[in-house]
């Protein structure tokens, strides 16, 4: 029981990070029907940006307050990564949207390779260690031979994720921008006929996806204490799996899928072996798609040709 509870906490933490990344996949797919292969690398990029800014603040500028530094890191990483993805979309995808359907996908594969190699060249291909910080751990149960713990970092991850999801919900449901996004998702031509600037809406979608992935990158750096230029690939594949599992195009689906993938992986590693945890995650996807081809919360009319 204690082990179960502990894995639940760990799994939800990991799942929150996957969910934040998965939203970027699902939003971009929903609005322009494109799988953005470079999205995982945008997440990785943010973890490096976060580490660099953190070191700059604490070691070069001598900022003593870790919480303040982390707030600045989070905001700056989100802003810079959002800007970065804005430029990627302008340079590498926008002109290809009018081309054949796979063109932007192929371009995003190229962008993915570019980003991971760019970071590997600039920062070195090896793991970069993050200074340890916020190491408080709270015991939830004691005795019984196994203590269930909740770390400050886990609380932080859940809290930041929850507030970002609330913000996202607000933007998508309550603002003209969110309405324009949903309109473009349902009928791009009609949205344009009603005065929606489709290009700008697509830009905004890429920026929002990148901002959430950036937050995930910061949390990931904090949680695992190490970043690597190849992290984007595997996290990206997991988050994409989460998006498909939840039903690609569905925002609640992306979050649900992220949490499920995080849980499956964590439980598999705890009860069986950590060797095959990735296989378990993809296995759950495969089995789900057999019975629910559109994912858990997918809509009937998602397959645009």
């Amino acid at each position: 029981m204690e082990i179960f509870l502990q894995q639940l906490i760990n799994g939800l933490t990991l799942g929150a990070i996957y969910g934040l990344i998965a939203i970027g996949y699902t939003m971009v797919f929903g609005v322009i029907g494109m799988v953005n292969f470079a999205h995982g690398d945008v997440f990785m990029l943010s973890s490096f940006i976060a580490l660099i800014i953190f070191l700059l603040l604490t070691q070069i500028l001598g900022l003593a307050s870790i919480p303040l530094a982390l707030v600045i890191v989070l905001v700056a990483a989100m802003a810079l990564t959002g800007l970065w993805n804005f430029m990627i979309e302008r340079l590498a995808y926008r002109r290809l949207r009018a081309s054949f359907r796979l063109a932007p996908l192929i371009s995003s594969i190229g962008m993915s390779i570019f980003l991971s190699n760019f970071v590997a060249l600039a920062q070195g291909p090896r793991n970069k260690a993050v200074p340890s910080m916020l190491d408080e751990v709270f015991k939830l149960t004691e005795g019984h031979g196994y203590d269930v713990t909740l770390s400050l970092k886990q609380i932080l991850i859940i809290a930041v994720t929850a507030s970002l999801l609330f913000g996202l919900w607000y933007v998508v449901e309550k603002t003209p921008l969110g309405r324009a996004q949903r309109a473009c998702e349902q009928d791009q031509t009609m949205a344009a006929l009603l005065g929606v600037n489709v290009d700008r809406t697509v830009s905004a979608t890429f920026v929002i996806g990148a901002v959430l992935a950036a937050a995930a990158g910061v949390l990931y750096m904090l949680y695992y204490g190490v970043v690597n230029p190849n992290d984007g690939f595997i996290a990206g594949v997991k988050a994409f799996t989460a998006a498909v599992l939840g039903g690609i195009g569905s925002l609640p689906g992306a979050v649900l899928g992220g949490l499920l993938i995080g849980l499956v992986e964590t439980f598999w590693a705890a009860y069986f072996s950590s060797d095959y945890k990735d296989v378990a995650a993809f296995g759950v996807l495969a089995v789900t798609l057999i019975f629910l081809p559109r994912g858990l919360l997918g809509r009937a009319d998602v397959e645009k040709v």
Partner: protein
Amino acid sequence: MTMEPCSSPLLSIKGVKAFYGPVAALKGISLHVDEGEIVTLIGANGAGKSTLMMTIFGRPQASEGRILFGGTDITQRPTHEIARAGLAQVPEGRRIFPRMTVFENLQMGALNGKSSFAQDLDCVTALFPWLGTRAQQRAGTLSGGEQQMLAIGRALMSRPRLLLLDEPSLGLAPLIVKQIFEVLKRLNRDEGLTVFLVEQNAYHALKLADRAYVMVNGEISHAGTGRELLARDDIRAAYLGSA
């Protein structure tokens, strides 16, 4: 045959050609719509009527010729800017947003940033009162006629000077068609709304319209007042199913 207007028309289309790939859908269309008029365009399936409506909004863009609205050239402008210039369209097949509520569909019609939202909403719900009481219904669950009225309401939310409608009567019961035509007539008379209407329902359209054009194979074949065209035997035979 076309009468040239004395003052500059609200919409004027001059020698417009448009292509889908290599296929010409519009082969040099010239027509005009004056302020305060109801003008209708009739023609057989595939004549290019919907293409003309969309070309006015730049999708597809005219490859030759010019489109002027209120004297300014909009031929090369992007679609969303044209929508902000004072034209609104009720496109073929209604194209409401099915997964949005009725209210959200109307919000989409209001160009955002406009301050007169509440007032415009009042005008639209005065025309179609049920839009107000069923504001929270998902638009995809509305009946066909209701969706058509919503599409018209949505277009009117931007307070356009010119309203384009592409076969608003398609698939609707005669009573609803009559209702919709009444609304158009009233808006035209009371609010001075200019209307450019594509119709298969040629008899009603020709009776409603001040002037009419007939399109055949991407070209204008006839033009005249609604009454004149209604009186012509060849038009009656081709588009009204009676000799």
